[in-house]
């Protein structure tokens, strides 16, 4: 459904996205994971026709973003990082407007609005101005809006940024439901857990480049499933091991208090880059 071909963006001397190549299959949830400034938003903006690539291109549902942007716009739903709702309009009016922009049938719109507002748990608030909503509710409305015209591919830029754990869980639940409906999703995040929990495959991005791509489990298996660390001793390097027993044995040899824990994508990122992801 999505295929990038050496997708590149320079802002003057700054190479924000460097010849990125990946593809996303139909029905897959694909995550771009990386720290601030990695180029995630820039990649999404190119894929959603908001920014022109400096070179390279991409295909969305078989259509080229450069030569056929109109077809691309018809097949995509965009849930941006910034909450760009019309705060003076009500929830229902925001969706109504979106439906009109996408030339949805008049008869189709009210039912779809109800379906989506129920889906995101905001049906009771349908006639309130968006101004009255909390941040988490606005995020959910933004998701409903992006889905209004039944896009085949959905782009979500940092869908849970700045939310409390409970609001985040709610959105994860929604994304899980969407995944089961067979829609294709590309999301970006700098939350390790989020990528791990939601994504079928993850591309780890840093400084405009993709460091590695794979299913979270596979990425974690490469280094070893278990991490062995010395408690309170940062000078002792952590070790990656393939089984818990191996890890415990190795721990005995270290001569300090040890912890053995499951590997996370964070460890994968540190192994690849030598940096923490949310530093």
């Amino acid at each position, binding site marked *: 459904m999505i295929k990038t071909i050496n997708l590149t963006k320079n802002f003057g001397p700054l190479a924000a996205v460097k010849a990125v190549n990946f593809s996303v299959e139909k029905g897959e949830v694909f995550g771009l994971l990386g720290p601030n400034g990695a180029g995630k938003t820039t990649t999404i903006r190119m894929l959603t026709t*908001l920014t022109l690539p400096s070179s390279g291109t991409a295909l969305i549902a078989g259509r080229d973003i450069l030569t056929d942007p109109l077809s691309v716009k018809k097949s995509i739903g*965009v849930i941006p990082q910034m909450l760009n709702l019309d*705060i003076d*309009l009500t929830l229902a009016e925001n969706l109504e407007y979106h439906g*009109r*922009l996408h030339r949805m049938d008049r008869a189709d719109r009210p039912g779809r609005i109800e379906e989506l507002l129920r889906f995101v748990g905001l049906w009771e608030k349908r006639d309130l101005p968006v101004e009255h909503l909390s941040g988490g509710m606005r995020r959910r409305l933004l998701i409903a809006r992006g889905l209004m015209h039944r896009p085949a591919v959905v782009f979500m830029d940092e869908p849970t940024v700045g939310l409390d754990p409970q609001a985040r869980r709610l959105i994860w639940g929604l994304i899980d439901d969407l995944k089961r409906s067979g829609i294709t999703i590309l999301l970006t995040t700098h939350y390790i857990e989020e990528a791990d929990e939601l994504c079928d495959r993850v591309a780890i991005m840093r400084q405009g480049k993709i460091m590695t791509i794979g299913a979270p489990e596979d990425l974690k298996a490469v280094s070893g499933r278990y991490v062995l660390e010395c408690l309170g001793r940062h000078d002792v390097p952590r070790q990656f091991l393939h089984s818990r027993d191996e890890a415990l044995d190795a721990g005995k040899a270290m001569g300090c208090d040890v912890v053995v824990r499951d590997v996370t994508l964070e460890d994968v990122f540190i192994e690849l880059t030598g940096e923490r992801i949310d530093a």
Partner: protein
Amino acid sequence: MNFYPIFWKDMLLIRKKPWKFLASSMVTPILYLVTFGWGLGRGMSMAGGTYLDFILPGLLALSAMNNSFGPVSTSVNVSKLYTKTIEEVLVSPVGPWSIALGRALSGMVRGLFSAFLLLIVGLASGVNMTLSPYILLVLGLTAFCFASAGVAAAMIAKSHEDMSNFNSFVIIPMSFLAGTFFSPDKLPEPFRSAILVYPLTHASMLLRALAGGREPDALSVIILAAYAVFFFYLAGRMVRRIA
């Protein structure tokens, strides 16, 4: 073309705050009317009528300009730079010309509406003028022209300051110089010719001729229409540049 949703949303916003809309449409024209018509102009007479008779057509043009250019440029500017609501439209299959047209039409409605209100207030306060449907046409053209200019200016502006500079250096001087408050004939050359560059001058001259029951100047119609076409073209091109 799928300009209607853009227009629809602006009209919806007006309907939500009718009093705010009414007040903001009326304040400046009534201020001008009071200051220049009743205050300053009382007892003054121009070419066979009162100063108020003279000034009302100019104020109509001014009002059509201010209430189309102002709200449209502010709203487009804010949606582009701050709220980013324009991005919702840019990722939808609505083309740049539809965006420009939807915005220009909603600005036109605002401009026409405020001019219409002023006309009623003017007539109610005893202004003498000939009414004709052409007055509505000229006002519509004027409002469309400046609404398009508002879209273009807001798309070109890179900041709020750019926008307010454009207001200070272009719109405000034009408000005072473009024959709203005086007849361009009274000015010495080259100033007389210079202010004929302003589209607003032609709008005022056309409205003044129609209000006085005279034949309007065809050249002014052509110039005003040419400006409208040019500004609309510019607006579409500027939206396309970012789309």
